[in-house]
């Protein structure tokens, strides 16, 4: 197939546009596509950091708060949010706290969720395990209260108290 624009070179760029519900297909060669500005991404390598960076910056449209966020900085490793947005890489574990609010939305876009539900380190993860068990029991407690099983609720409440004591 030849390019619809110049009619000379083979069409290597195939675009489907939907404008006001009308579907339109375009078959262009690279030069013409570039000239028409249809090739925003060609020329830039299609890599995970560039993909990620577009998620972090919302495809070039800054999301609420991004203006202020760009100036944020991790005081441990010195990484700025702007650098993170460019490379997609965090500098140290403290960055997760320094950029916590921004990461909340980044993680939601990437993973669909923001809270870990998997393995906990066996030696140092006791606290995380306890907290997770307390959360689980609190959900269970809410359920039995709805069902008006008060005796069971009392038992669960006592278990939660025991675990909370261990946490301290």
């Amino acid at each position, binding site marked *: 197939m030849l390019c619809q624009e110049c009619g000379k070179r083979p069409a290597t760029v195939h675009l489907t546009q939907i404008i006001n519900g009308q579907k339109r297909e375009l078959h262009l060669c690279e030069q013409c596509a570039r000239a028409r500005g249809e090739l925003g991404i060609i020329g830039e390598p299609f890599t995970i950091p560039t993909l990620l960076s577009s998620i972090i910056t919302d495809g070039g449209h800054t999301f609420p708060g991004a203006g202020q966020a760009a100036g944020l900085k991790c005081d441990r490793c*010195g990484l700025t949010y702007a650098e993170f947005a460019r490379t997609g890489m*965090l500098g140290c574990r403290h960055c997760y706290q320094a950029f916590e609010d921004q990461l909340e939305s980044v993680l939601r876009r990437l993973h669909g969720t923001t809270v*870990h539900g998997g393995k906990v380190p066996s030696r140092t993860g006791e606290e995380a395990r306890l907290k997770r068990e307390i959360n689980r029991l609190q959900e269970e407690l809410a359920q039995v209260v709805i069902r008006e099983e008060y005796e069971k609720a009392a038992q669960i409440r006592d278990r939660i108290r025991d675990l909370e004591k261990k946490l301290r």
Partner: protein
Amino acid sequence: MNLEEILYNSYSSWMDPSGPDSDVVLSSRVRLARNLEDVAFPSRMGDEGAQRVLRMVERAVEDLERDPQLGPVGMFRLDQLGNLDRQVLVEKHLISPNHAQQPRGRAVILRQDESLCIMVNEEDHLRIQSLTPGMQLDEAWRTAQAADDVLEGRLNYAFCQRRGYLTTCPTNVGTGLRGSVMVHLPGLTMVGQARQVFSALGKLGLAVRGLYGEGSEAHGNIFQISNQTSLGPSEEEILRNLKAVSAQVIAHERNARRALLSQTRLQLEDRVWRAYGILSHARVISSEEAIRLWSDVRLGVDLGIITDGISTEALNELLVATRPGFIQKVVGRELEPAGRDAERAALIRHRLRR
């Protein structure tokens, strides 16, 4: 633990053809990303940080060494290995291309049978990987998890209750887990359905890549299917999802092969035997041509078109044996592409001799 033995041997334990679903699945891999609490992530740790990580990990590796199930292992600093040696490690899927290209301050920990391999100071301080033959994600997870537990016995990981294991790239945070299944899909490619299947996988949160990971092309109809998200569900749930979807892909591939056999048997046989003819007689062959023909021959063996003389094991071994780094390692010197192509043809002829 002998590194030279690994570098000169094109066979790795994941090539064992007795693994489940080995007509479609070459290998299964589980990778865990971990970072140490006290050092900045590799992108910002500097030389001094890198040396600190290496020293701490060296001590923890002594525990791996003593573990009856996991040991013996060896730890090797990448800047002490030659270019070619590092390239062979990439070709054997033991380290990433990125790890090989920037050897300074980096290391690899290997078990002799190559089923366990840990990259030190790649994108994260630790990338614990386990590789198994055929469809055995659970087995790979057990090994990686056991190594993780042993290392954690001595190392303090960067972990937070809310976000889980903290990683350099937020795409890996949470479990730090990536499961991947390496599949050979000549049937789906021939019937023109591969792209359709892959776009469906994308909608299910899974990614499809070529043989050598991110950004690589799918040579020889070999693809890697892996999970894209690592945060939220448990490791077991992530792997269960990956297994369920892979099972569908395997079923589609087998259907495609059956359809090809029943509708175009003669053409398929012709294609397989031509590929075998060239592979077993060529005098000069590029790695691209070799892997393309490899795919046809492997399909022929799996479908019973080629019934005698070629073992699946030997074919799997060719995946590594025909790579440029390995050929030069065996010949014992660096070769121009033309020289490699001749050596490659000779090596394949020798190995396919019936």
